[in-house]
């Protein structure tokens, strides 16, 4: 069933938990599992024992492409001196949450 017999813990999955309906899923950690369904079960058991979640996403860790440390200078530093990109010149209407 599994294509991953060389590692009996299964492959690695990243776990994202939504703590309340309507707000973004947040990275919570990772679990090992042989398939997506068992990864969801593992995530439920490891990360939602204390009512932390209303929804869980699991994503194979290998499917995530990440920036590297070498990218940092070119990716992020150019934003340092562009304060005008911040929406600080607007007033936020009352009642807007999670902005």
């Amino acid at each position, binding site marked *: *069933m*599994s294509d991953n*017999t060389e590692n*009996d*813990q299964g492959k690695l999955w990243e776990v994202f938990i939504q703590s309340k309906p309507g707000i973004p899923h947040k990275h919570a950690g990772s*679990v*090992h*599992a*042989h*398939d997506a*369904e*068992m990864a969801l*079960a*593992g995530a*439920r*058991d*490891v990360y939602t*024992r204390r009512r932390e979640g209303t929804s869980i996403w699991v994503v194979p860790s290998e499917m995530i492409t990440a920036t590297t440390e070498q990218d940092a200078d070119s990716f992020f530093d150019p934003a340092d001196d562009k304060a005008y990109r911040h929406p600080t010149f607007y007033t936020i209407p009352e009642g807007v949450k999670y902005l």
Partner: protein
Amino acid sequence: MTEKEARFEYLIRLGDNALILGQRLGEWCGHAHQLESDIALTNIALDNVGQARNLLTEAGKVEGKGRSEDDLAFFRTENEFRNNLLTEQENGNFAQTITRQYLFDVFQFHLYSGLCSSTDDFLKGFAEKSVKEVTYHRKLSGDWMVRLGDGTEESHDKMQEALDILWPFTGELFEKTEADEILIASGAVPDLEEIKKIWIEETSAKIEEATLTIPDTMGYMARGSRDGHHTEYMGYILAEMQALPRSMPDATW
């Protein structure tokens, strides 16, 4: 037998099943093959111990002799326990634990589902709350049944061996006593014969999906728990579970 005695026996039976299975699963704490399974098994253990607390507390009230949940859990002897023999079987390897869990989860799920329409307020309330927990247990153990049964040659063989060991302990899950007859008549509990039909159908399908075979026991099924007769494992479980409260009865956290 009075209705009160019947209710006490029934509550003790449900409570002891949850308590002893919870105790067994608790033995896995820190020993499973991966963190995910370790915490999954101990979560199920805690669910069962929680159920046992409710059930034994209610049993003590019904009995009316002032016995608490702790008195019933820690100060009864082996032949006063009414848990099914299946729940006390040893953890063995992971395959054996999963098989025991699956066979019992399906039983517990359908029993609690039936109790959701009980005429007994306590049982109805208890079942409505607990069936959600058991729904998850049954899904998890069922998923493992298929993944290990239909997994590698080694996992398949271990699962078949587990099924061969545990199957003979499933017959007495459905054995009825006078207490059942009294409580069925008042609509307080479902008929175990009905539960048995659903259980056989569901477990057979899952066992087939897991490419496993129900062993031919030539009609033999172990029995005894209804009369307080247990397998050789029970004494050791109680020794470990009861040692502290018996040696220090007034110990508190």
